[in-house]
């Protein structure tokens, strides 16, 4: 399960999916084994253990481990009786992808008539290209400071325009990261939505700026530091050269004017409409963002219809899961901490479990007559942005309109309390009825979620107009960590999930009428940051003036209580966001994802402690 890309960098890693399990809220330890015994001869455990083994090294897209895993999966598929797709010799479908970005020879040259800044050149030690920057040489222009560089659209009925009265055409815009630190809460709540660096760069470009230099002000978090490139691979360029610089360089830019500290203080505390001003120097930018390319491979096979699917409406059903994971966690989305850093991430649940579910479904279907063809698709490069499934849709081996339905499995190995979440049920009116019938025998405590805009491969098929379902047992404390190991998988339940899947596919294969597709409007919840969606079960002390967020209590059984938090604790950091007051906390909550564990740092008395908390859904 990949992390969502719409978030600011430090949160990205923490913002994968998984939801309603919070409904269960319960991390109560005894995973209740289903009554259904493991089918005789089930290879589920063996498959998960193999995929999660050290030999495959965490199955990072493009790695040797990924290739070995793909070969293993292809062997299993062949053993089941699946074949390469018509016209193909084997089951491997390689594709190129962007594995990440790194800085090459980015530099900044400052020229001015006189003073310490004159003619100074800085390179990688003190300047980093932003990950979405264009790569370009010697983009130069007069420097102009544009405050926080925030433009709030008029539709917000809240005037804030850092560019009001400021001409930045053909100039290099210098702007502050984040948003005014001391704005009142209502203002802050609006400003935060327009303070994303991509958005700021776009605003500068639209006003004719040639380049952007981001500085992290002395009064802001991460003061004086550059913005790390991270693993932002959703890196459609911004069509503008953009860099961040250290505090030393920033101070040089302000020589001959008021000090940066003073200027930021005024922007933060006083009238937010402090005008920008020209800096008495010229800046030349050279930006060099190197995209690291890799080659990954989907494994795609099929079980042909028996005797043939000719004359059947929409003769294909696709069942899929991603098999790639995070390797050793070197490319960003790992949540490994302490001595776990750098170790292989076995991804037993994420997503050896889903891979095993697909293979288990194939086992069952291979033994039966089939009125439609069943594609078995194991995706790679899911963890870096659903790349494998998107490639399948972009270059479909069978016509997309001929696909009756897609079933997706992502993290189905950690069943708790018999709860199975089924997502994307809004993509067809046929699903509820079909699932109800299939589940009577399967007996899961099913939670339905209509939303198909999930951070897993089901999103690719939904966008292509294919009625889809995605199955998950939800996130857990080992999510995206080296501790996501095969010994923690609930194998009996995993077999039950595969059995339910086989039943659903059987029904789909038998139906004359394939399910109708319904487009689900993307809710504001998944479209962006539009308010708090999560439930943490904290009861803040509103009267406290202590630094941090003092808890006056926690709601029994809620995520905070389960994370071990209690009355009197002071939260100081959540998901990498420092918390100094309730407004910081509100902002931090706005960025959390339901079901995704986040690190919480808190003070208990004078002791600094850390825990993981999994926010639930606010109803």
């Amino acid at each position, binding site marked *: 399960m990949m992390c969502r890309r719409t978030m600011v960098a430090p949160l990205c890693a923490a913002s994968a999916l998984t939801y309603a399990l919070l*409904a269960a809220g319960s991390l109560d330890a005894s995973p209740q084994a289903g009554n259904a015994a493991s089918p005789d001869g089930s290879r589920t455990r063996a498959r998960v253990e193999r995929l999660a083994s050290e030999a495959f090294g965490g199955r990072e897209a493009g790695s040797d481990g990924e290739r070995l895993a793909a070969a293993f999966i292809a062997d299993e598929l062949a053993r089941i009786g699946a074949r390469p797709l018509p016209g193909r010799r084997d089951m491997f479908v390689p594709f190129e992808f962007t594995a990440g970005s790194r800085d090459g020879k980015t530099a900044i040259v400052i020229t001015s008539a006189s003073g310490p800044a004159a003619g100074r050149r800085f390179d990688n030690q003190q300047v980093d290209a932003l990950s979405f920057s264009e790569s370009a040489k010697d983009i130069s222009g007069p420097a102009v400071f544009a405050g926080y560089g925030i433009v709030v659209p008029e539709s917000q009925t809240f005037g804030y325009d850092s560019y009001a009265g400021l001409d930045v055409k053909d100039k290099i815009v210098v702007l502050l990261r984040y948003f005014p630190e001391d704005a009142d809460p209502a203002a802050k709540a609006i400003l935060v939505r327009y303070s994303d660096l991509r958005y700021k760069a776009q605003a500068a470009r639209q006003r004719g700026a040639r380049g952007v230099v981001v500085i992290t002000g002395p009064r802001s978090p991460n003061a004086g530091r550059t913005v790390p490139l991270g693993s932002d691979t959703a890196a459609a360029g911004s069509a503008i050269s953009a860099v961040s610089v250290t505090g030393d360089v920033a101070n040089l830019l302000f020589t001959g004017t008021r000090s940066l500290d003073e200027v930021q203080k005024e922007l933060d505390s006083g009238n937010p409409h402090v005008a920008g001003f020209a800096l008495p120097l010229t800046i030349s930018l050279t930006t060099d963002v190197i995209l690291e390319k890799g080659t990954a491979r989907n494994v795609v096979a099929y079980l042909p219809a028996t005797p043939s699917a000719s004359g059947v409406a929409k003769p294909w059903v696709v069942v899929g899961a991603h098999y790639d994971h995070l390797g050793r966690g070197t490319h960003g989305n790992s949540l490994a901490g302490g001595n776990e850093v750098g170790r292989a991430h076995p991804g037993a649940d994420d997503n050896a479990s889903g891979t095993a579910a697909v293979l288990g479904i194939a086992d069952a279907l291979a033994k039966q007559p089939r009125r439609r063809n069943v594609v078995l698709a194991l995706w790679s490069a899911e963890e870096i942005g659903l790349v494998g499934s998107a490639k399948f849709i972009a270059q479909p081996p069978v016509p997309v309109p001929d696909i009756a339905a897609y079933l997706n499995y992502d993290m189905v190995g950690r069943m708790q309390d018999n709860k199975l979440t089924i997502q994307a049920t809004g993509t067809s009116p046929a699903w509820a*009825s079909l699932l*109800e019938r*299939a589940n009577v025998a399967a007996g899961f*405590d099913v939670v339905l979620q209509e939303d198909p805009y999930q951070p897993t491969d089901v999103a690719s098929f939904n966008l292509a107009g294919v009625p889809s379902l995605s199955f998950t047992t939800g996130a857990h404390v080992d999510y995206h960590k080296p501790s996501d190991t095969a010994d923690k998988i609930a194998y009996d339940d995993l077999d039950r999930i595969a059995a339910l899947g086989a039943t659903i596919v059987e029904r789909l294969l038998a139906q004359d009428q394939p399910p109708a597709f319904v487009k689900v409007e993307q809710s504001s919840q998944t479209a962006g940051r539009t308010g708090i969606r999560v439930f943490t079960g904290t009861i803040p002390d509103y009267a406290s003036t202590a630094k941090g967020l003092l808890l006056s209590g926690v709601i029994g059984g809620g995520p905070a209580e389960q994370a071990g938090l209690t009355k009197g604790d002071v939260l100081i950091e959540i998901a990498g966001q420092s918390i100094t007051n309730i407004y910081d906390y509100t902002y931090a909550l706005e960025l959390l994802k339901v079901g995704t564990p986040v690190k919480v740092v808190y003070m208990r008395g004078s002791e600094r402690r850390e825990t993981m908390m999994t926010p639930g859904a606010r109803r």
Partner: protein
Amino acid sequence: MTPDPIFRWYPIAVKPLRALTLVILTATGIAAAAAQSAPPAQASPERELLSRVRRLTLEGRRAGEGYWSADGRRLVFQSEREPGNPFYQIYTLTLATGETMRVSPGYGKTTCAFIHPTTGDVLFASTHHDPRSRELQKEELDFRASGKERRYSWDYDPEMELYVHNAKTGALTRLTNAQGYDAEGSYSPDGRWIVFSSTRQAYGRTLTPAERKQLETDPSFFGEIYIMRSDGTELRRLTTVNGYDGGPFFSPDGTRIVWRRFDEQGLIADVFTMKLDGTDVRQLTSFGAMSWAPYIHPSGRYLLFASNKLGFENFEVFMVDIDGRKEPIRVTYSDGFDGLPVPSPDGQQLAWTSSRGGGREGQIFLAQWNHDKALALLAAAPERKR
């Protein structure tokens, strides 16, 4: 077997303190930090009695009132899932196959079904003979489409009459024919009798001005328990106390009737039993809350019911010994609605209606029931506070 007091009472079902907090914080734009009022669902204590909890109904806006066939192979329930009809219709679900079948006409309103113990016929209440049925469906659909939200209220439609669906022929036979709400019917274990609730006493006579006003504001006030033969003959009225008497079922040995009685204001309800002639009335609960939807376990030793003792909107399932000597014991631990508990004929499973799947609307859930544990807990319970 009452239709949804939970929905009926939503208009005033607000937790004042929490609601106030939310309003204030929303106004200052930091609702979020405080909107932590959404409570977590399903704590583990209920695993003592309920295991392998699973959701049975998934289709439609909501479902409820699930009752077992005598052989335990089928459930009959009501669900809003008929295309074009916003009201409940009646369905049977065959547990071995997962297949459902509608047994009601598909139009009009229906409620509260029960399966005949020997013939498999299905008893339910319906308004489909009302010529305005389709018009009323459209009105309701239009209202919902308008985006306005009327908190659902059960209207005690005086057109409700009892029908029986013949399992062999599929034919519908009308059993009652009296102005007033006739519904909430169930069969005796031998299938020869039906108990039900009716407001017929408020119709066909001259009402006092106070009664007329009462009928307009809350017709359920006139609900009383009636018994008749399963062919609709030999009708007898069993209760005569003001306030809504409803949801009657026979005891497993067929000698008594369990039901719930609301007070005159319709806010407090308690569970009672009586003999089939209406004598020997015994009150089994006294929470001072809305305790209703009782159903006796097939062992005959205790019964399950729902109560909002723990919070106006928070209904939980409780159980109490058959004589009501001991304090009732809580069964479910889940926010929102848990009610209408119905044990399977073998006593090993429990079907009930719950909103634990998300949202406000209920669906039917199923779990394994630990009968031995239930007996042990009941034996250890203290004397009931009265």
